[in-house]
């Protein structure tokens, strides 16, 4: 269980997070919804130790507020970054291999064939593209690869930053199905999304962020039918549909 209390984060003099309290329970999908610049990505970066922040971040009762990115990874908290950021010059297989670094170590030969098998079973398309360089994949495949690379790290908590970004609607649906499937294997997920409707659909609990603060929170099913939320965040989607 991940618990965040009174989290503030800064970029230089600009305060991007102004006191955030959230918790992610075991086995849940927890989503954070908000517009561009609300501070969603900063929240994940704070957890992974990539941004200057204050406040307490606890992982299963252990304080990881001051942990380095490497230490956070060792705890099994894996951050799949926004915009996928796969390693373009490595093949699909090599990208997956590199994902094991947090438990494999720089030198050594621990076997990871089983992990790769699992990822390929989840994403058969990656197996077809096994020896292609990552830059040649489509956006959806790159997103799958980024998630797969995260899974290779044997996550105990998977943090996904906008997995739907820049993908066609059909592909987004496929990716979200896989996210639910990963969660069913017992891995809790902290999901960040702009696509509010889809995020509420798959998640158990949701937070809505605005300008560095949590505006609303609640069980996703209830938020889905909440008038205020519908107005502010889902309105556009209804008109489009």
């Amino acid at each position, binding site marked *: 269980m991940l618990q965040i209390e009174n989290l503030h984060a800064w970029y230089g003099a600009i305060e991007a997070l102004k006191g955030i309290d959230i918790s992610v329970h075991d086995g849940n999908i927890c989503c954070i919804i908000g517009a561009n610049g609300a501070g969603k990505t900063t929240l994940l970066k704070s957890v*992974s130790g990539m941004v200057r922040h204050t406040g307490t971040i606890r992982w299963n009762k252990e304080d990881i507020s001051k942990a380095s990115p490497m230490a956070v990874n060792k705890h099994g908290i894996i951050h799949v*970054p926004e915009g996928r*950021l796969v*390693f*373009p*010059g490595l093949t699909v297989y090599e990208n997956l291999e590199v994902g094991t*670094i947090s438990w494999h170590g720089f030198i050594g030969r621990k076997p990871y064939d089983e992990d790769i098998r699992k990822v390929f079973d989840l994403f058969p398309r990656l197996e077809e593209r096994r020896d292609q360089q990552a830059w040649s994949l489509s956006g959806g495949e790159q997103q799958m690869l980024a998630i797969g690379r995260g899974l290779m790290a044997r996550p105990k908590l998977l943090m996904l930053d906008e997995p739907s970004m820049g993908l066609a609607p059909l592909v987004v649906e496929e990716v979200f199905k896989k996210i639910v499937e990963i969660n069913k294997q017992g891995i809790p997920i902290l999901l960040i999304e702009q696509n509010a409707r889809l995020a509420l659909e798959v998640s158990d609990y949701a937070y809505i962020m605005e300008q560095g603060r949590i505006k609303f929170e609640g069980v996703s099913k209830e938020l889905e039918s909440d008038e205020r939320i519908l107005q502010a965040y889902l309105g556009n989607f209804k008109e489009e549909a």
Partner: protein
Amino acid sequence: MALFFQQTLTGVSVGLVYATVAMGLMLLLRAAGVMNFAQGNLLAMGAYLSFLFMEKLQLSSGLLMVILALAVFVAVGCVFCSVCFLPFKHAKWPQAMMICTIGAGTVIQECCLLFITAETRSVRPILAGSLSVGGFVIPYQYFFIFGAMLFMMTGLFFLFEKMYCGRVMSAAAQNKYAADLLGIPTNLTTMVTFCIVVCMVGFSGWLLAPVYRVSASLSNFQARAFASVVIGGFGSLKGAIIGGILVGLIEAYSTYFTTTYKDVVVFGCLLLVLAFCPQGIIPSGTKKEKA
């Protein structure tokens, strides 16, 4: 005909050295995002070190020399990385790092002149003598150059294509941010890259010392290595190798016509390549890697 073979041989062996220096440039450019202007001085440092060990200290055991040299190169690599890369990692002005390498180059050169020798010296080849086959002569030293360069290239290939840590290193080189998020120790991988490059370039200088004599002007190889990178194609190690050998051959064949102006021929070719084929002979394998 004998002259032609002779020139080809000289060209290829010198070209292999250019290729190694160029590969070093390429590796640093990818791993640290810096064009290393101290590369030539590092090459000269290797030559000076060979003079120090072989002539000044008169060390007798080859193995001892290699181990000592390795230790010096790794130490220089670590210091170089912590002075030129780590402080400027988050610098707003990326050229800061490059300028720092120019400064580091001067420091390395002056240290060699101050502590080892200020005069141009010659060094005994590792194995004196030469092999003569039907009219053309190959000094044994060239075999060492061939062998060592091929060894280094296969070593690099093995490291980056076959080994886990090499893969992690290229991942860190391609995207530092994503690598940090995965828990790759990016500072460590960069430092290892610096050490590997200093070793490669240093030993190349070592092997060149008997052929070119030990002097600070060995650092002029930098410009040719840069030409190799551009001709071969920015961004790929394969390009650096092919470019290096090409530059070596061009230089060797140009001595048919002129020895004084062979630099003009080499850099004239560089200009032609830049004018007609600016992406180089082997364009970079990936689109994004260039960025």
